[in-house]
C-alpha cells in the first residue's frame, strides 16, 4: 500500500476527530468535573471535593449494589464467553459450509429489538409463562418455579441472551483468521481435546476472546433496563439503576451520580485488565 504524505490524511481525519472531541471528550470531561462538585437543593455548586467519591464508596448500600452488579456481570460474562467460544469454534471448523448462515441468524437475533426481547422474557419465565407451562405439562415439575421471574436469575438469563450474539462476533472474527491447516497440524502433532484449545487455538484467538469478555462484562454491568423490567424487588437494583436515580429530579444528586459513573468505569477497566492477563497466563502454560 502506498503511503501518501500524512498532511492530507489529517485533513480527512479532522471532522470525525472534532466530532469525537466535542461530543464525547467534552461531555465526559464535564461529567468528571461535575463529580467534584456538590449538590445543593436543585442545583449543583462548583467545588473541588472528593466528598462524592468518599461518600459513594463508604456508603454500605451503594457498595453492596456495586459489588452485586460486578458479580452478576462477571458471572454473566463467564457464562457467555465460553458458550460463544464453542459456538464460534463449531461454526468455523465444523459447520463451515453453513457458517455464514449461522452467523447471519445470530446477527438477526441481535437486531431484533433490544427492549422487546427483554420484555418477552417475562412471558417466557413468568409463573404462568411458557417455560413453566411446558415443564408442568411435561411432568418435570409439580409446581411452577417462581424464582425464575423477578429475581437475579431472570436478570442473568436475559442478559446472557442479549450478550451472546455480541460476544460471538469478535471471537468469530478472530477464528476466521485461523487457518484449518494450522489446527490440523497441531492435531497431527498429538494435541487433542482441551489441550488443543488451550495451547493452540486460544492463544490465536485471544484478542477476540478478550474483546468478547470486555463487551459482555461492560454491557452487563452498565445495563439498567433488564433489572428494571425483570429484576423485581430482589434483583432490581444494579449500579445502572442507582446512577440513573441520582439524575431524577426528585432525589437529584448529579455529582454523586457522576462520581459513581467514574467509579464504575474504573472498575470495569480493572476487571478487564485482570481477566485478559489471566487468559494470557492460562494459554501460555
Amino acid at each position, binding site marked *: *500500500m*502506498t*503511503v501518501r504524505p*500524512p498532511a492530507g*490524511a489529517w*485533513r*480527512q*481525519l479532522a*471532522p*470525525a476527530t472534532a*466530532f*469525537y472531541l466535542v*461530543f464525547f471528550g467534552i*461531555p465526559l470531561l*464535564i*461529567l468528571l468535573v*461535575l463529580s467534584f462538585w456538590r449538590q445543593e437543593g436543585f442545583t449543583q455548586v462548583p467545588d473541588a471535593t472528593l466528598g462524592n467519591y468518599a461518600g459513594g464508596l463508604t456508603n454500605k448500600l451503594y457498595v453492596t449494589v456495586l459489588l452485586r452488579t460486578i458479580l452478576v456481570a462477571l458471572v454473566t460474562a463467564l457464562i457467555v464467553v*465460553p*458458550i460463544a467460544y*464453542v*459456538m464460534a*469454534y*463449531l461454526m468455523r471448523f*465444523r459447520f463451515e459450509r453453513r457458517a455464514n448462515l*449461522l452467523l*447471519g441468524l*445470530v*446477527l*438477526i*437475533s*441481535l437486531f*431484533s*429489538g433490544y*427492549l*422487546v*426481547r427483554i*420484555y*418477552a*422474557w417475562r*412471558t*417466557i419465565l413468568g409463573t*404462568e409463562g*411458557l417455560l413453566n*407451562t411446558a415443564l408442568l405439562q411435561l411432568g418435570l415439575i409439580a409446581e411452577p418455579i417462581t424464582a425464575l421471574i423477578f429475581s437475579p436469575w431472570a436478570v442473568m438469563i436475559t442478559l446472557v*441472551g442479549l450478550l*451472546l*450474539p455480541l460476544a460471538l462476533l469478535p471471537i468469530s472474527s478472530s477464528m476466521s483468521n485461523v487457518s484449518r491447516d494450522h489446527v490440523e497440524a497441531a*492435531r497431527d502433532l498429538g494435541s*487433542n*481435546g*482441551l489441550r488443543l*484449545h488451550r495451547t493452540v487455538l486460544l492463544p490465536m484467538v485471544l484478542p477476540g476472546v478478550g474483546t468478547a469478555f470486555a463487551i459482555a462484562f461492560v454491557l452487563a454491568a*452498565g445495563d*439498567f*433496563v433488564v433489572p428494571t*423490567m425483570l429484576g423485581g424487588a430482589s434483583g432490581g437494583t444494579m449500579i445502572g439503576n442507582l*446512577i440513573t436515580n441520582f439524575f431524577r429530579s426528585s432525589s437529584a444528586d448529579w455529582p454523586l451520580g*457522576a462520581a459513581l*459513573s467514574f467509579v464504575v*468505569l474504573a472498575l470495569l477497566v480493572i476487571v478487564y485488565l485482570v481477566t485478559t492477563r489471566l487468559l494470557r497466563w492460562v494459554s501460555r502454560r
Partner: protein
Amino acid sequence: MIGQRAAPATDRAGEAGSGILSRWAARIFVAIVLLYLFAPVVVTVLFSFTTSPRLSLPIEGLTLDWYGQAFSNPLFMTALTNSLWLALVTAVVSVGLGLPFSFGLARLKDRARGPLLTASLVPAAVPALVLGLALAVFFTTIHVRPGLLPAAIGHILVALPFVILTLNARLETFDFTVLEAARDLGASPIRTFRDITFPIIRPSVLGAALLAMALSIDEFVVTWFTIGNQQSLPVLIWGLLRRGIDPAVNALATVVLFSLVVLVILASLLSRRRS
C-alpha cells in the same frame, strides 16, 4: 489428510468421542443456542397474532387486531417519523464523518493507525448509560434543551465507531495506486472520488450506512437521556411496556423487528460484495 477429515473432531468436552455422538452433540449445542437466542423473538411475533390478551397459552385464535390498534395509536406515527428521521441523519452524518476518517486512517503509517483506530472505538466501550448521562449533562450545560437534535448526536456517537470499523476493514485492502494514477492523469480530487473511488467502495459505504440506521432505530438508552419529551420508536415502546400487557406492543415490535432484519441483511450482503 483424508483420514484426518474423517477422524472425529474434538470438542471442548474432552477427548474425542465416537464420531456420531460428537457430531450430534455439536448439532444439539448449536440448536439449543439458536433456540435460546430466538425464543424472545418468536414469543414477540407469535403473540402479536394471538387473540389472548394475556400473552399466555393456550392459543385460542389468530387475529390482526393488534396491528390495527398499534397503528391507530396517534403517538405511533410521531414516533415512527422521528425514528426514521433520526436513522437517516445518523446514517448520513456518521458516514459523512466516518468515510474521510477511514481514508485518513488508511493513509497513515501503521504505528499511528493502530492507536487511532482503537481510540475511535472507545465510545463503544463506554456503557450507554454513561454516554447518555454525559450527553444530557453536556446539553444542559450549554443550554440546549433535550430533543431530536441532541438525540441525533447521541445516535451518531453510537454509530460512528461501527461505521469506522466497517469502512476501515474495506479500505485496508484498497488499492491507492489507482488514485495516484488518476491524479497523475490530471483528474481533480472530486472527479477521482466520484468516478473511481466511490463506485469501488459503494457497497461497503451502503453497508455501513444501513448498519448505522439499524443501530439508530434500535437505540434506547442514550436516546432516553437526550430526547426529552419527544418520541422515538424505542422510547414509545418503553412507555407502553411500563403500562402492562398490551399485545399491540408486540405488533409494534414485530414491525420494527422486520424492518431491522431487512436492514441488517441488506447491510451484510452489501458489505461483502465487491464491485
